[in-house]
């Protein structure tokens, strides 16, 4: 193999000049002749019966082309929306979901009718003229109450509100008894809105004569949409084309198909006109799947010398009113509850609970931030009880030998946890910080230092594990490498870049493998009509470890064929032909060489080896042998203003290890974004519903708090490199790492700052009002607090 020149190179993202100069092309930038605009009439209630829908006034309104309700869509759509097994193979119930409500609405924002009009303004105006008569039903909003026997039901014809209840590993009382110190915590993972900069959007055009449908949409996985939508509409894959052009962020919320992904193409078929729908920000907060939405009951125990004994986690997951396609993915929090540590026993159970809210589904990290949060909080609570420094408790119990098989049978491929922690502590100046903290407390200055030694499972994933989880499709990845006669290269991939920088990193891999100039390589993705028959999309930090490997594998297939041609041209045996830096030569005669481009040209000519077909292109599907396991340690330093409750994030240190690196600038960018998103959960973001009415109270960015760059310090990054033994490139994933690590680094820091008040737990977001109340209550009941601490 050639000496690498591009892999590892810190080069600018080649897609940025286009994207930052307004030349990006998103769904709303596309139009077709005769396009009409669709507006969705949504339920204003969390739970109600639809008694009648009067469309008379709306159909007469200016510019209105059509009004459709359930009965119209039932003519062109069949079946229910997909739900995969994910990490819970057997569910108690899966409420059947049709993309539009018929008789009952079960969350605020559920579609009940759509209006098609010549302009989006006319569609919106007319949608206000549709008169829906509802009979309100009690809304189920609270997880605990939902599980009570006398609770109202989310679906009036459902048996109860239990979606699933799966114990992965039960208690082992004998082992648990060995613990000399035990802590308990109840941790809230509040619902979050993924809030990508570009909201969702769909444009669909149906050709009746050809029976073909073309759909432009903002998706992380266009091939999956084609698969599911084709099934619902009875259109075979070869007549259904899904194009996901530039996409302004997904964060996991653009993996699963949505109601509108069905309704817009169906409306195009019903009306005979191209139809466009673009989600408003309020619609997005209300109806795009939420992330997190979980409560964990955690119990952990250790010996007095700091040897960890057991951790037990029970996850209550707020599914929402229907199951998201990958709703049970977040149960993977249970499988990683033990984190980076050796425990004698790990027990875990997941309970999925239906509520009258929009469904939850994967959101950046999806289960792994939750796992890290519960485990790292447990470690800090144990350290507090043991009067040990939290860093030392970690050091004493880190997993140090790899591969490591955890209690759930998952195999950690490689790691060097202590090394990353030491680097983070070095950057932070940990000892000095602890002294500053001690000095500060004497003067009423409350510094907090929080640590998060995170691990994750990513690179989804090996076929044996993923095919059963999706219900049949293995989450492998495909790539096609085409070399044209004059040597330029086009690469088609099944992953989808919506911020990850594939346009830059994948050509870096190809450039090294083929030995051709980086600038001669073009990457294409997002169009199901191009490239291999199936692509699997981008999520779960999989693109490089799975997709990048498919690109590498297809490139190697091309080199293999080129080598055969070169050998033929040299009249030498194939095994005697060397390939280095884009040139073939007979071993021992490096002066007489042929450039890759010359061989490419020859591949389209005459005189090829006996039996060889013309052309130089290859398709590869890569099926990884294992998941990959990145890790690292983050440290947050906060100062809490105990008068106002304000948390001032003073420093943030992140040391991450994602194996070998293709482009360090892109890795840093992913960490920055991820860390910001996790901090945002810790301090700012929260979807709030009114408990009684079920109305969302955070329907705009005035109330749903997404922070800006102003709210963050400069992140201090460090890096260790522990190559993955799982794949030939030695790479892992980094897209979710920052989010996985950071929420608990902040919360551990806030709890550390507040420890002099006897405060052991702070729910997210750690907002000033919440912290002020905790301090206020702790001071008011300080005697009581002391009792409780004993």
């Amino acid at each position, binding site marked *: 193999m050639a000496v690498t020149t591009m892999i590892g190179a810190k080069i600018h993202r080649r897609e940025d000049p286009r994207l930052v100069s307004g030349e990006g092309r998103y769904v709303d930038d596309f139009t077709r002749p005769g396009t009409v605009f669709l507006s969705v009439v949504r339920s204003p209630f969390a739970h109600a019966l639809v008694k009648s829908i009067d469309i008379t006034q709306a159909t007469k309104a200016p510019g209105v082309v059509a009004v459709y309700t359930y009965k119209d869509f039932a003519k062109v759509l069949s079946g229910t929306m997909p739900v995969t097994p994910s990490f819970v193979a057997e569910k108690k119930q899966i409420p059947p979901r049709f993309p539009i409500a018929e008789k009952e609405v079960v969350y605020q924002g559920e579609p009940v009718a759509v209006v098609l009009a010549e302009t*989006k*303004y006319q569609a*919106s*105006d007319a949608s206000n003229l549709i008169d829906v008569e509802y009979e309100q039903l009690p809304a189920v909003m609270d997880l605990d109450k939902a599980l009570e026997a006398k609770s109202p039901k989310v679906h009036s014809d459902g048996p109860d509100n239990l979606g699933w209840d799966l114990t992965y590993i039960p208690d082992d009382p004998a082992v648990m008894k060995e613990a000399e110190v035990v802590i308990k915590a109840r941790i809230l993972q509040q619902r979050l809105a993924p809030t990508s900069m570009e909201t969702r959007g769909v444009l669909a055009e149906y050709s009746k004569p050809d029976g073909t449908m073309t759909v432009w949409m903002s998706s992380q996985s266009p091939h999956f949409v084609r698969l599911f939508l084709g099934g619902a509409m009875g259109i075979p894959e070869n007549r259904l084309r899904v194009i996901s052009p530039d996409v302004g962020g997904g964060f996991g919320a653009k993996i699963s198909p949505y109601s509108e992904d069905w309704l817009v193409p169906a409306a195009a078929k019903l009306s005979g006109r191209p139809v466009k729908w673009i989600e*408003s920000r*309020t619609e997005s907060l209300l109806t795009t799947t939420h992330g997190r939405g979980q409560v964990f009951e955690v119990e952990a125990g250790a010996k007095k010398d700091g040897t960890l004994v057991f951790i037990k986690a029970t996850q209550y997951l707020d599914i929402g009113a229907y199951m998201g396609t990958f709703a049970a993915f977040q149960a993977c929090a249970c499988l990683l509850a033990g984190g980076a540590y050796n425990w004698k026993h790990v027990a875990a159970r997941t309970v999925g609970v239906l509520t009258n809210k929009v469904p939850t589904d994967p959101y950046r990290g999806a289960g792994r931030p939750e796992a890290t949060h519960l485990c790292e909080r447990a470690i800090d609570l144990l350290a507090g009880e043991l009067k040990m420094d939290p860093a030392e408790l970690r050091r004493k119990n880190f997993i140090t030998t790899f591969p490591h098989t955890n209690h759930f049978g998952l195999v950690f491929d490689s790691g060097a946890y202590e090394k990353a922690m030491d680097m983070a502590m070095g950057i932070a100046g940990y000892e000095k910080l602890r002294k500053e903290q001690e000095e500060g407390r004497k003067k009423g200055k409350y510094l907090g230092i929080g640590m998060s030694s995170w691990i994750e499972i990513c690179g989804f994933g090996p076929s044996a594990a993923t095919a059963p989880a999706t219900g049949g499709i293995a989450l492998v990845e495909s790539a096609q490498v085409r070399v044209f006669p004059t040597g330029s290269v086009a690469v088609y991939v099944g992953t989808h870049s919506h911020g990850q920088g594939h346009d830059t990193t994948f050509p870096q891999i190809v450039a090294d493998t083929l030995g051709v100039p980086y600038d001669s390589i073009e990457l294409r993705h997002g169009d199901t009509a191009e490239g291999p028959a199936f692509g699997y999309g981008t999520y779960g930090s999989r693109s490089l470890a799975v997709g990048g490997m498919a690109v590498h594998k297809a490139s190697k297939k091309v080199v293999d064929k080129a080598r055969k041609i070169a050998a033929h041209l040299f009249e030498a045996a194939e095994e005697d032909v060397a390939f280095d830096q884009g040139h073939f030569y007979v071993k021992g005669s490096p002066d007489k060489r042929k450039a890759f481009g010359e061989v490419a040209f020859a591949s389209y000519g005459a005189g090829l080896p006996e039996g060889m077909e013309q052309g130089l292109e290859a398709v590869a599907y890569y099926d990884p042998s294992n998941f990959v396991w990145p890790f690292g340690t983050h440290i947050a330093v906060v100062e809490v203003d105990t*008068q*106002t409750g*304000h948390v001032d994030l003073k420093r943030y240190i992140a040391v991450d290890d994602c194996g070998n690196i293709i482009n360090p600038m892109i890795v840093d960018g992913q960490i920055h974004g991820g860390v910001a998103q996790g901090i945002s959960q810790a301090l*700012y973001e929260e979807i*709030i519903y009114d408990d009684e009415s079920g109305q969302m*109270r*955070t329907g*705009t960015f*005035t*109330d749903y*708090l997404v*922070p*800006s760059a*102003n*709210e963050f310090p400069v992140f201090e990054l460090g890096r260790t490199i522990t190559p993955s033994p799982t794949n030939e490139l030695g790479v892992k994933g980094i897209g979710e790492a920052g989010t996985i690590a950071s929420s608990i680094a902040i919360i551990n820091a806030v709890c550390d700052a507040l420890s002099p008040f006897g405060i052991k737990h702070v729910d997210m977001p750690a*907002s*000033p*009002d919440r912290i*002020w*109340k905790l301090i*206020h209550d702790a001071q008011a009941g300080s005697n009581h607090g002391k009792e409780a601490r004993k």
Partner: protein
Amino acid sequence: MIPAAFEYARASSVEEASKLLKKYGEDAKVLAGGHSLIPLMRLRLAQPKALVDINGIKDLDHIKESGSKLHVGALARHVMIQNSAVVKQNLPILAEVAGEVGDNQVRNMGTIGGVMAHADAAGDYPTIALMLDAEIVTNQRTIAAKDFFKDIFTTPLAPDEIVIEVVFPVANGPHKYIKFRRRLFDWAIVGAAAQKMNGGWRIGLTNVGPTPVRATAVEKALHDGAKPEEAAQHASDGLNPSGDLRASPEYKKHLARVLTKRAIEQAE
């Protein structure tokens, strides 16, 4: 951005704007910077039949000192007030408050006249205007700030009345405005202002009730020789703030006391 349909007219003089407003009656709204109005229209919470755009009116963005008064034209943008040498010299607290409004985009468009006429309890200028006894000059009359902020989003402005300028006293002594919020570009959860003027203190509070509040009990305590910490305890006297997603009434009252103390102590 899909508002309900509306008519649009652009005025080139105050007289023309007034005539247009008269023509459309109560269903018309004045469009200045638009940073409160347009978000409401986007959500269709406001559905005016007509917008009268006053951005084409010349000479309505003046900032000048005259007769120990600071005159700030209604169309003066936040960024102009923030950077104005005249404001910095004659009423520096106003320049500082302007610099704390929203983000760059908001400050480039938003106007002082718009903030006054909108009368949002979370607005910052109204607090300064009220505590300093500023006057709001319209095309019809001059209204004292204490008579201007009647209730939440409620002023005595008639449908065809337009704010022309806000007239503040000159005050360049020690001052401080503390705007407590979650994100830098947010509205105040609670704001507290302190200004030394004519030998006494003026203390104002933002977002602790339906209108801005002048904390006269604090002013009096300071006048009577109380220390800032003691005087600030009176900041919540008589307050009955409503709670919202970011703060309970109790927490707002607590913040009023803490921030008032800090504003007095940090005034320079």
